[in-house]
């Protein structure tokens, strides 16, 4: 998520392809190192949707379609924000 821009595609690829996976891992680490949170939107069998925060690339479900990066939450007046970046896989 990027302020004023909305969604930005950071990287995409197939985790089964070694080169793609390496690129996805690099993008993942870069975003977390810059202070972003990573979340994977999930859908349960009963259709309920929620998100799962992941802290390492290994925590990302292999069948996840995307990882959404967004700024870490901070307490305070809700008048500031920074947006998302997205890595599709």
């Amino acid at each position: 998520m990027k302020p004023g821009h909305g969604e930005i595609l950071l990287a995409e690829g197939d985790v089964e392809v070694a080169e793609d996976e390496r690129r996805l891992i690099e993008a993942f680490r870069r975003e977390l190192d810059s202070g972003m949170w990573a979340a994977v939107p999930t859908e349960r069998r009963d259709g309920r949707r929620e998100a799962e925060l992941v802290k390492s690339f290994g925590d990302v479900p292999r069948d996840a379609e995307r990882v959404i990066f967004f700024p870490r939450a901070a307490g305070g007046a809700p008048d500031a924000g920074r947006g998302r970046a997205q890595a599709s896989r």
Partner: protein
Amino acid sequence: MLLALGTAAIVLVVLLWELARPHALRAFATAHARARSWRQRVRERRQAAQLGYDPGRERRAEQRARELLRSCVEQRDWEMYRDLGFLRVWGGVGERRHAAGAPYAYLIYPHRPIVAFVPQTGVLLNEYCVAFPDHTRPYGSARLPDSDDVLAKWMALTADERGLIAQANMHLPGRQIDPEQVRRDLLRLTRWERERDELGATGIVRAA
């Protein structure tokens, strides 16, 4: 003789200056203002070029954010946000979290505090002020598009409710959002759900 001529010349110059001074000062002020305006325009153009300013950018960003939000939340929740401008998320842990019998729930507004309330009674519990600041640009950074802010809160709440609440600044209801407005929103939500359920029962589905 020379002295008289010199004196006359000086007097003449002074008189001419006195006559011309208002015009000269006015012309100088006008030229100065034009130069300042020109420098301002150049500076603005330079800044706009550096920032890549695009007047339609925020609107397009919001459209993308709405599509992303729509792709992440349940259809019912998306329609709630589309129609009412906020999202309700059930609170608590375990299975009750997703049921109407949840002990409490949250209303998520874009760029406003999260409001906790008791679904059964409508009693407002707390406001949780939480933001998603750009840590790389702590001062003067732009905001997330509205729907991205809602999505960020939704993801954080559904993934780690306790963590998000621990990060937030908690206040009594009314600190930033008028409690009457929240109560009206809860009434709107109740009415919206009733109408939606009635439409669903009759098989009418509104296009998203």
